């Protein structure tokens, strides 16, 4: 047992294998990405045309410079030189125009594909059932929506089309060099694989250095995030100095990885340059020999033209390496995106499912269910709630109360048996139709950024301000909400900041009432409301329950007392059922629970009359 592991405020595991930053090119992924350009095919086809045009234009520009120097200037023709310059100008202008359109279309394409992908992903996420959301971390989704989508965008807009331009540029210029002089061209040809290999080796070293950087950086940000979130604990326990020291070590460690990466790229870039300088030297040597040797008589101008063309030929090599890297990142991103998109919902509404007007009879017959089908949580549950009845579910943690509620709300489907509303099996009811007539209040409900009013309106978006105020008044909590800094217009921050736990819960109550549901589910709904406030809204709550079928899970058994049915659960089975009075008389599990409650809560105080 160690008091504090060496030098760390937080410990985090290594990233998982499937979150690799890059993966090799994969035709099936590329083909699938290509499908996303189909809705924008006009753009895509024009773009392809422009790409080909530009791949020819670029080497031609360099060729023109060389040709003017080689031709008119060496032949001392002033008129030719000026005409050549003007010709170059014209060509340059058209090349820039091509560039403008190429750039615009490529970026348009990238942005549109990114937009479509994001929409599709989000729609897919919304359609996934709760089981998916309960096991998926938000951080992963966010990085799908940002980093991965962004990588795919770069892949579509830059990698593919820029590679085509640059590859084409290399081929065209190589062809031109070949025509000019095949012997000099051999030098270029010999050098190209050297540079390519260098490129590969160092890219690999560099990407491993980058991985170290991003790992150490994620340690920095993780620690930072916890330090900010846990600042109250830190200051409360006077840990400022210690934490600052730990953080300094972490930051220094991270900077060392940065220096290491610089060392890798510091070897690579100069070596690349060295080889292109080496090329110039070789060209000078061989070209010099060709020009000087009486048997060849190559014109000097050809040598000069070669210098210009060689630049056009070699320039793309470095950026091609970069593009290759981006392509692999895009592959990894695309693979993760498609894996998410391809995760099918475990179930969807049956095609024959229909909308119903709920009366409120809820029935479970012989239901067996487990989140993991191998390990059932509920065994052979049968219950009936008549319209307007209140059913209380009682039992220890893990006894299956919340699972029953998840089944009634159609968040999950039962393994065996059936859940029926008004006699219709849940599987035949469309989820939206059911959910519009049902409301759920949990111990800790989520509130969204926006005003308190907006949050209440989630229950019924069409509700007017008056409706909201009326609902709050009916719950007898209008004054509690109005005493917020800006009343119902108070802005709620992220994670409900600006509201206390209890205030958040009040918002959820009003939200549920506004929805005017036929079926109401309270899952420990008042647990985080303090008793003083609960006293206030207790009476109002019974208004809320009036005339609706209600399922109540509550630890304060006082709320259970007036239920029409009390179901006592133990390890996934209903072990006792009846009214409060009947169950107390049975002197079984329920009366024991009640005794425990009595011991904790009251200690024998009688209310003063």
């Amino acid at each position: 047992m160690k008091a504090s592991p060496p030098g760390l405020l937080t410990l985090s595991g290594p990233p998982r294998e499937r979150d690799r930053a890059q993966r090799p090119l994969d035709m099936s992924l590329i083909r699938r990405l290509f499908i996303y350009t189909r809705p924008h095919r006009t753009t895509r086809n024009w773009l392809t045309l422009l790409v080909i045009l530009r791949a020819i234009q670029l080497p031609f520009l360099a060729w023109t410079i060389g040709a003017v120097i080689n031709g008119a200037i060496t032949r001392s023709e002033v008129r030719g030189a000026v005409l050549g310059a003007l010709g170059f100008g014209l060509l340059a202008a058209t090349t820039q125009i091509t560039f403008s359109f190429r750039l615009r279309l490529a970026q348009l394409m990238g942005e549109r594909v990114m937009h479509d992908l994001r929409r599709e992903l989000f729609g897919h996420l919304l359609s996934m059932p709760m089981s998916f959301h309960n096991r998926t971390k938000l951080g992963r989704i966010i990085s799908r929506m940002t980093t991965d989508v962004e990588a795919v965008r770069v892949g579509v807009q830059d990698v593919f089309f820029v590679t085509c331009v640059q590859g084409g540029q290399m081929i065209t210029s190589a062809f031109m060099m070949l025509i000019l002089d095949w012997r000099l061209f051999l030098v270029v040809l010999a050098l190209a694989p050297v540079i390519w290999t260098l490129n590969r080796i160092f890219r690999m070293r560099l990407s491993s250095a980058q991985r170290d950087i991003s790992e150490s950086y994620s340690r920095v940000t993780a620690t930072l995030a916890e330090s900010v979130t846990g600042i109250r604990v830190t200051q409360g326990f006077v840990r400022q100095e210690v934490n600052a020291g730990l953080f300094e070590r972490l930051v220094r460690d991270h900077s060392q990885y940065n220096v290491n990466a610089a060392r890798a790229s510091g070897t690579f870039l100069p070596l690349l340059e060295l080889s292109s300088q080496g090329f110039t030297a070789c060209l000078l040597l061989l070209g010099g020999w060709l020009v000087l040797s009486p048997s060849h008589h190559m014109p000097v101008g050809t040598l000069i033209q070669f210098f210009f063309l060689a630049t056009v030929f070699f320039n793309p090599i470095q950026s091609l390496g970069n593009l290759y890297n981006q392509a692999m990142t895009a592959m990894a991103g695309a693979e993760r995106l498609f894996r998410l998109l391809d995760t099918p919902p475990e179930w969807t509404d049956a095609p024959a499912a229909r909308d119903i007007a709920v009366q409120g009879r809820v029935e479970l017959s012989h239901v067996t269910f487990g989140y993991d089908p191998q390990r059932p949580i509920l065994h052979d549950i049968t219950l009936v709630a008549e319209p307007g009845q209140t059913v209380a579910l009682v039992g220890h943690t893990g006894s299956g109360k919340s699972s029953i509620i998840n089944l009634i709300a159609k968040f999950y489907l039962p393994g065996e048996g059936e859940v029926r509303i008004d006699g219709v099996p849940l599987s035949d009811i469309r989820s939206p139709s059911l959910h519009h007539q049902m409301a759920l209040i949990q111990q800790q409900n989520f509130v969204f950024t926006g005003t308190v009013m907006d949050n209440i309106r989630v229950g019924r978006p069409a509700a007017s301000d008056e409706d909201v105020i009326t609902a709050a008044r009916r719950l007898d909590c209008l004054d509690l909400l109005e005493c917020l800094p800006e009343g119902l217009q108070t802005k709620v921050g992220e994670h409900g900041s600006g509201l206390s736990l209890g205030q958040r819960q009040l918002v959820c109550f009003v939200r549920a009432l506004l929805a005017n549901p036929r079926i109401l589910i309270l899952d420990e709904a008042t647990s985080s409301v303090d008793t003083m406030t609960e006293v206030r809204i207790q009476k109002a709550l019974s208004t809320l329950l009036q005339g609706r079928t209600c399922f109540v899970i509550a630890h304060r058994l006082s709320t259970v007392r007036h239920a029409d049915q009390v179901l006592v659960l133990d390890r996934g089975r209903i072990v006792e059922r009846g009214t409060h009075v009947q169950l107390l008389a049975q002197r079984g599990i329920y009366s024991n629970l009640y005794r425990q409650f009595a011991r904790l809560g009251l200690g024998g105080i009688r209310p003063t009359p």
Partner: protein
Amino acid sequence: MTTPSSGLAPGLDNGALIKRLLALTWRHRIGCLKVMSLQILLLAISLSGLGLTGLGIDFIRKVVQPDARAPHWPFGLVPPSHWSPMTVVAAIAGTLMLFALVRAVLNFTYTVELARLLQRDVVATLRTEVYAKLQRLSFRFFDDNASGSIINRVTSDVQATRLFIDGVIIQGLIMILSLAFYLVYMTSLHAGLTLICLSTTPLLILASAAFARMVRPAYAHNRTLVDKMLLVISESLQGIQVIKAFAREPETDARFASAVREVRDQKLWIINRLCIFTPIIGFLTDINIIILLGYGGYLVIQGELPLGAGMVVFAGLLQQFSGQVANISNIANSIQESLTAARRVFEVLDAPIEIASPPNAILLPRSRGIVEFHHVWFGYTPETMVLRDVTFKTQPGQCIAVLGTTGSGKSTLLSMIPRFYDPDRGTVLIDGLDARRYNLDDLRRNVGIVFQENFLFSNTVAANIAFGNPQASPAQIERAARIASAHDFIMGLRDGYNTVLAESGSDLSGGQRQRLAIARAILLDPAILLLDDPTAAIDPQTEHEIMSAMDSAMVGRTTFVVAHRLSTLRRANWILVLDRGRIVQAGTHDQLMVAKGPYQRQAAMQVVDDESLRMLNSPVEVPGTGGTL
């Protein structure tokens, strides 16, 4: 952008900021000097390489065309006349290679030195300073600033501040130097040609500056839009159950669609401008080459300019020159970016620490545990007071229960004791002295706190318990865990005390988290213990597990407990009932039970009705009194 009330220092104006940043650069002057001298050497060598290539061409041309201009040998280094032309070419090529080698070595050194300077010296130091400062800032700062923004100040803002050193100072000086070098070189080749070729440069600079000014706000706006979109995602997924329960998928999808569309459309606006501007700048650079070909060609023909060392070298120089000119807009961007970021960094570094030890602070090794509030008024904003005229006094070892509705000021009252906030009016006294006179760290070490929603670090269980005293021995840790009834469940974890907790302890139950928090609070054996409704956010079924932990934790300390359970309230020596920041009732349980008021009303709620009691009909132990029902 930020008001003083957000706990930040007021933003500096540009002049003051630049002064601060220059001082920062001065602190790292040796590293800067190293990096810059390397750059100058590199520049000189690359220019020589270019010159040599031109020389080679001219030499070959002279040999082939004897009527061409004679090559100009630099520094009078004329090759011996007995060398064959091929030997001379080989010598030039060899020198070129040598230069390239030296350049490669220098380049490597430069890259590594730059990374050392920036990442190790500047960024690491600055991050450490900002973090250390953050740790000391008062709660108000963290209340008023979103955690994302605070984290950004330490991460990206510090990186962007560093940009002032490399992107502005170093790049700027290099740019000026190399432009001067190029200019001198080109002028020495041909002054007229230089002048005409560079006539487009001012236009280039102006156009770049204008464009940057136009798109910069657009890019900033794009980032805001992306953040908005991300917020929709994160909220929709965190609140997915609410969305599904109310079948609000269509509305949510529409909300997201409009957020994504906004991002895309705004980006298309930027792209439209980018696609007009970039080619124009490109063409402005092309104009230089047109002039070079026409006018330069004329000059070569007239014999006023050598072909290799003149024309070809000129073409190379022009390219590099335009590269540096294009850099101007980068530098301009860096100035903007680094100033914005530096302002945010200095806002933190200069932020006043609102709550700190006074000079000549009184040391408080062990408090006696007497807490007194004397007409305390406090509000998070001056308009709304959360505590109004609160007055009370405790004796050592007493247990004070605080009761009140949501928003009545219970937590605020507790957080005044360890000076998380200072009162606006009135005084909080500890052992009879104003709390503000003590050494702050001493005061807080005397106060153990268990919050409503406790934060655990993703570290081992032991490290979390020993958070207040990393030097604590295993025996001490275990003792604290036992008092908090946490030892048994800890031993049941994978690695016992060495089990690493998931982020915010999410792999533990609420009750287990709170018991760890209680163990953490009592490890220091504080004289004063604050329990801010530790059962509020936990699974009600396991509430009783905490009750006993709380009970044993209270022994021998002055304890403040926000509580609603009658069992706890009964045992308190004194109960304060708060309503909208005022103490509306105070007394013992027995006194309050017989007084008409909010206390009696809420107690009645928790009482089991007579009928049920009769039916339970087996005797119920009443803790504390030994009596029976």
